């Protein structure tokens, strides 16, 4: 149940930052990026060029993708200097 007008914060503001994380955009995808960790050199090109903040980085290492959000644009695969990322068709 959504809030009534009496319960909403004043002035239509959003009080909490980053709430878009609760909205998953992964199902927009027709192709998914797949990482070959053997080839990855953790250069972070995929990270700096990802439009959807969907590259998982832990301790400075590329650790895969946030599939809940990744829209499958393919930029990461295209820009990867070692071809460590390939795009594969999503199975329904």
């Amino acid at each position, binding site marked *: 149940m959504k809030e009534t007008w009496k319960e909403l914060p004043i*002035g239509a*503001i959003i009080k909490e930052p980053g709430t878009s994380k609760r909205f998953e955009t992964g199902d927009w995808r027709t192709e998914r990026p797949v990482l070959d960790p053997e080839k990855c050199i953790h250069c972070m090109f995929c990270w700096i060029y990802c439009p959807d903040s969907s590259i998982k980085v832990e301790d400075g290492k590329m650790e895969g993708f946030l599939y809940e959000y990744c829209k499958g644009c393919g930029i990461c695969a295209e820009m990867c200097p070692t071809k460590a990322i390939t795009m594969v068709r999503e199975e329904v």
Partner: protein
Amino acid sequence: MKVVAKTANEAMAEAMRQINPDVVAAYPITPATEIVQIFSSFVHDGLVDTEFIAVESEHSAMSACIGAAAAGARVMTSTSSQGLALMDEVLYIAAALRLPIVICEINRALSAPINIHCDHSDTMNVRDSGWIQIYAEDSQEAYDSVIQAMKIAEEAFLPAMVTADGFILSHAMQRIDMLEDEEVQAFIGEHKSPYNLLDIDNPITIGPLDLQDYFFEHKRQEADAMMKAPKVIKKVADEFGQKFGRKYGLVEEYRLDDADYAIVVMGSTAGTAKDTVDLMREKGHKVGLLRIRVFRPFPAEEILNALKNVKVVGVMDRADGVNAFGGPVFMEVRAALYESEKKPDVYSFVYGLGGRDVKPVDIERVFQMIMEADKGKKIDRLNYIGVRE
């Protein structure tokens, strides 16, 4: 308290100085230019702490005011006519964002034809923008109302405009009782914001896209704030009256107790109209006057109560709705009186457009017409007073 001679422009600028807002963003326009000029000199002479933004348009003036208010600052501006019209888009946004901005507004006709003199078409144009509107009768009231408006806006979390008639008040010297600076500061108190954009550690998003699932709730919330505003306005006016001796309400009744015929006016015309009422009373006519001081929120209950025993009402609008039905104040007063038992006849009288003088004889004519109507003479629902026919 000290007695001074000031125009409404000067008096409103003084009120701004005493309020000492954090930010003023303004663009000059006749006949409100002086307010901006005088306030700029206060800034440049170090009489206020205000940061003044000399913007490149009124649209940017209101936009900067919105930004500053969202950032937790106490914010004011001043404008008139075309300037207010240029702000129109952002006025709605200021209200919906619930930002307590105050405008010192000087009433001037909207183009075309271009004209610099008084009528109310500028503020009528934005009557449904979600702003509180207070129409002053004289410079004293303009001064007092600006001070009250700051406190009202910050308690209701709605923006407010105080209006004074162009040239008639803006440029006419009147006797003003000015409060001491400390009295004003003590009266308005610490600034209150609905939220704060500059709270870096608690980041908020202001002005998101609001779709079918939430937009209506947010507008309902804004409507609720306006419904609660009369209480705030009365409370602030009462406190002002107790402290400083000058009493204000949402409306002002003048010799209405036993009146059969009443006119409704706003702004400086009330002064002329009160004299006319006195004159006609001397001749034995049972006439009276209702002045609407606060037009937004619309004081329907007060109007209904004040006019419930009157036989005929003439509503004088200093703006034309150009709708072939009646002036904007007329429409709303008539709607309010629909709930009265006796349902008095209500007629519309459009007058004074573009600064056309309104004389006692014009007001007397309005009374004569509604008295004749009561005796069975058919008159038009919509009448134009003071125009060459």
